[in-house]
């Protein structure tokens, strides 16, 4: 007599960067994404909150750690050095807590992760990883390096050329399709080659499409609408392929178990940029030491607050920043004053700010000292910026889309809270695989 071997559980997570709940639902309902429609048909699709502020680096870091930004330490694509105020760019190495992939590794499960933002440079992990945005060189994006030649043979592309996207929208669409195809080939390669228990691939082209060509996604009369839908059909085909590969090896009766679809934030159309540093300057909180500031490093003494992308406001507290001038005991009062005034900010005759959170409301963890004092969330159509360029608070933009906070999505048969946030998902995945 032989002992029955318990079949090991596996999980496959497909990330669609910047795809809002309402859009995914509509594309599924209108047959643009038939495979996705089939997957979500029996329920389980939920609207989900992104991390705050709602940018990929923060949200995906919250996903991969299951932690609050004040625990994992990633608050944006940029930070400032406290002494010099020079911008710095957090790396994967700045993540202050382990990923749930590390935890799975400790349980003997190998993970394959492809193209998740905020994982550059690639580092040793239990399995294999290919870094996503802001990955620079492919050689530093792949762990272990033995996979590099295969990715080079595929002609793997980390990202589309966003620099050209604005001038050449049709070129962007070509680039999106080609990049997705190399992502698909890389997924196939790792699927077959790696002995994984957890597999994750993130499509970031959706976010790029929305930034530059949101109207092509939303407006049926847009000249590029058909091509935008064609891209979504290709994304749907990829999701379908992953579903099929996954279920080839799943026991009967477990359809969909362990398969997760999610996005890291939502998207909507943009009408105007709202330059928070210009507003802080106009409101008397910020002064520059020169006429043409290039970053917050150019603030003058006496500056009481400054902003970083996308809606982060730091009070320039003495002892926390090199040129800090606000006494720590006055910081809270100043912060509340700024929050109150910010809510009155108008662009285009409309209130631009929907909510302003204080750090204590949304952040909790040992990195709280690094967190912004305020995080503002705009109303749809007004994109918050931390640029130091320009003196106009409300300005036109060449982008068509902007991130939203409350309109990400998740589809999963694993337990998910009623009002999920992206950091909630890690626990359920680990529990499913190791519990």
């Amino acid at each position, binding site marked *: 007599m032989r002992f029955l071997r318990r079949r090991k559980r596996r999980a496959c997570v497909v990330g669609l960067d910047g795809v809002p709940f309402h859009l995914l639902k509509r594309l599924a309902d209108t047959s643009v994404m038939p495979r996705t429609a089939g997957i979500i048909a029996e329920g389980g699709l939920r609207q989900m909150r992104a991390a705050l502020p709602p*940018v990929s680096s923060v949200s995906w870091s919250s996903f991969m750690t299951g932690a609050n930004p004040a625990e994992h330490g990633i608050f944006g*694509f*940029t930070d400032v050095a406290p002494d010099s105020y020079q*911008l*710095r*760019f*957090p*790396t994967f*190495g*700045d993540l202050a807590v382990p990923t749930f992939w590390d935890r799975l590794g400790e349980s003997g499960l190998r993970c394959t992760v492809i193209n998740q933002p905020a994982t550059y*440079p*690639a*580092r*040793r992990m239990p399995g294999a990883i290919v870094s996503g*945005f*802001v990955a*620079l060189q492919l*050689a*530093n994006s792949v*762990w*272990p*390096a*033995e996979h*590099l*030649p295969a990715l080079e043979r595929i002609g793997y592309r980390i*990202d589309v050329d*966003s*620099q050209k*996207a604005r001038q050449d929208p049709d070129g962007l669409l070509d680039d999106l399709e080609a990049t997705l195809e190399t992502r698909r080939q890389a997924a196939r390669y790792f699927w077959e080659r790696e002995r994984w228990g957890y597999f994750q691939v993130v499509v970031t082209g959706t976010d*790029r499409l929305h*930034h530059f060509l949101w109207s092509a996604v939303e407006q049926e009369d847009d000249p590029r609408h058909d091509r935008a839908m064609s891209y979504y059909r290709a994304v749907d085909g990829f999701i379908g392929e992953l579903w099929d590969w996954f279920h080839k090896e799943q026991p009967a009766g477990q359809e969909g178990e362990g398969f997760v679809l999610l996005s890291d934030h939502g998207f909507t159309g943009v009408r105007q*940029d709202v330059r928070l540093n210009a507003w802080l300057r106009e409101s008397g909180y910020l002064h520059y030491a020169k006429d043409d500031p290039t970053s917050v490093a150019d603030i003058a003494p006496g500056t009481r607050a400054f902003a970083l*992308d*996308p809606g982060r406001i730091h009070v320039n507290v003495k002892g926390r920043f090199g040129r800090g001038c606000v006494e720590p005991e006055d910081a809270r009062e100043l912060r509340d004053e700024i929050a109150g005034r910010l809510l009155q900010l108008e662009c285009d005759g409309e209130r631009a700010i929907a909510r302003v959170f204080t750090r204590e409301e949304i952040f909790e963890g040992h990195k709280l000292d690094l967190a912004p004092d305020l995080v503002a969330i705009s109303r749809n159509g007004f*994109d918050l*910026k*931390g*640029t130091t360029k320009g003196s106009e608070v409300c300005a036109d*933009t060449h*982008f068509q889309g902007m991130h939203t906070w409350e309109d990400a999505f998740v589809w999963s048969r694993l337990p998910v809270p009623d009002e999920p946030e992206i950091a909630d998902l890690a626990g359920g995945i680990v529990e499913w695989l190791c519990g």
Partner: protein
Amino acid sequence: MAKGFTLWFTGLSASGKSTLAERVRDILLERGMNVEVLDGDVVRQNLSKGLGFSKEDRDINIRRIGFVCNLLTRNDVVAIGAAISPYKAIRDENRRLIGRFVVVYCKCDLDTLKERDPKGLYEKALQGEIKNFTGVSDPYEPPENAEVVVDTAKEDIEASVQKIIATLEQMSYIPATDGRGYSEEEEESIKQRLRDLGYI
């Protein structure tokens, strides 16, 4: 915290082990690390003088190099071993002994090696003038668990070196190029990417 480790280059004669070992040594020295190279050819002239090329003698030679690498590694030195080391069992023995052990497999096809043949050894081996010549008349067991595989027939030296350095950085055996994680040039590239998407 331990700083030492052993970087072990394995591959057929003329596959580029010594060249890469020297390049990597120079980079690590520039980064302020203590580095020693134990090159198979050099070791055979002193530490292993008198040993031949039978399997037994080869095993003794590789064990000796492994022994010295272990001493260096545990004293926070980066030990670079560059030897054909054809047999998996002895390489694995060294891995077990040393622990912080990174294998670089210098892969190269025989035709390219014959073309290179800087010491004329392949020609002599093929004519039967040299016995027990690895890859011709003696086996080579490619590593299955190498941390880095460089294909020196296809890659240029710099690409292979970058791959090795990147792996050592990823394994946290050596610090990244810059304390903040990015060089100035890389920061400029990142800024541009973030600007392109309206993130700064």
